[in-house]
């Protein structure tokens, strides 16, 4: 029998190691695997690389990991935190490395990693300082930048419903980066608001098939707060 569910956040995170690259789903406060992210704090691991669209929100999750100095490098499109200046302070002090990536390139690089595409060309960013040092090539008369796949050791994502095979659905804008991160990590861990018996999720409506998911922990925390 396949059963990817685990009882606790600690169990869900067992085996994560210093120096790991984490892919975090979520956009704003919505679809953040906050309990898993804060669980990383408890594991004591450090020297992490984090891929996330924002630098967290408020004083929770990624913002706490940043504050505790666990993160060596952030790969991000919009490294701002509503309600917190922790990232700004670390950055100014030179205590964190930042790789700034256009939001679509960030999503596409993770999707590429998940789809076995080692690199692709895109016109996004061409002729800007974010293309500095990157290979440029013309396609259809346009400058395009070569971008490499972006994979992770661990993805921490949030789902709305899950089953023991790890099939996932999301809720509204909670989908965002979560299905993309799920594809791109060697180990994907989902916290889910609802855990359903196998076979009750409509096969037409499963957004992330269980093949992309390794562990599921049931945390019914309610609604995100902006």
């Amino acid at each position, binding site marked *: 029998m396949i059963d990817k569910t685990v009882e606790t956040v600690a169990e869900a995170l067992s085996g994560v190691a210093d120096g790991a690259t984490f892919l975090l789903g979520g956009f704003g406060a919505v679809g953040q695997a906050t309990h898993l992210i804060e669980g990383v704090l408890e594991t004591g691991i450090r020297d992490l690389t984090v891929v996330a669209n924002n630098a967290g929100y408020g004083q929770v999750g990624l913002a706490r990991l940043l504050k505790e100095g666990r993160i060596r490098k952030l790969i991000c499109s919009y490294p701002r935190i509503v309600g917190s200046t922790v990232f700004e302070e670390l*950055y100014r002090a030179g205590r964190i490395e930042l790789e700034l990536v*256009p939001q679509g390139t960030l999503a596409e690089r993770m999707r590429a990693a998940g789809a076995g595409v080692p690199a692709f060309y895109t016109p996004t*960013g*061409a002729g*800007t300082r974010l293309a500095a040092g990157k290979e440029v090539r013309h396609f259809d008369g346009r400058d395009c930048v070569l971008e490499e796949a972006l994979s992770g050791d661990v993805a921490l994502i949030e789902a709305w419903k899950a089953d023991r095979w790890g099939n996932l659905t999301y*809720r509204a*804008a909670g989908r965002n980066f979560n299905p993309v991160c799920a594809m791109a990590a060697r180990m994907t861990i989902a916290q889910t608001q609802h855990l359903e018996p196998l076979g009750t999720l409509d096969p037409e409506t499963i957004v992330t098939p269980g093949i992309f998911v390794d562990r599921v922990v049931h945390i019914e925390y309610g609604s995100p707060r902006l």
Partner: protein
Amino acid sequence: MDTRIWTPLSRREIAARIASDIPNGWYVNLGIGVPTLVADEVPEGREVVFHAENGLLGIGPAPADADIDPWLINAGKQYVTLRPGGSYFHHADSFAMIRGGHLDLCVLGAYQVAENGDIANWATSENDTAPAVGGAMDLSVGTRRVWVAMNHLTREGEPRLVRDCTYPLTAQASVDRIYTDLAVIDVTARGFVVAEMIAGMTLEQLQAMTGATLHMPEA
């Protein structure tokens, strides 16, 4: 003595001016600031489908406080609603829409636009602390049309329409049209072409507030 006999458009008037140019059936992404206001100004009888980077098509008006769905936010992290016919999708699909040329239009704010269509709207210096780009580069490069909404001058009175951008570029040669508080200006192979000026404005006055040559439409 101020000889001005004209009144600049308000933010909402700029938004309404833009909205009046959006035909029925277009798919449109709105940036933050004035562009966001465009959604509320769509003329009666037109269906325009608004897109958000975080995976929404068919965004409706902001909800009343009692109707807020905390899972339903736009790319500006504001609470929104979804219209009948709306849909959700993930970020890679959302940016496939943007980058694959499926959106008819994006409306963006900008610091500067150059006469060749270069846009600078994400960083004000090469050495910004903690720069942030979001989806601006994807939108500027990928959508079929890029319209910019901005004031004609900076707060310090400097032109935002320039020969060459001095701020870091968002994208090269991508802006099609600029809506300011003073004029509507097309970006063409000839450079800036004045499509419209507010009442009382002269080309000479507008040129004095613009950092590159303004042309008039060819007859």
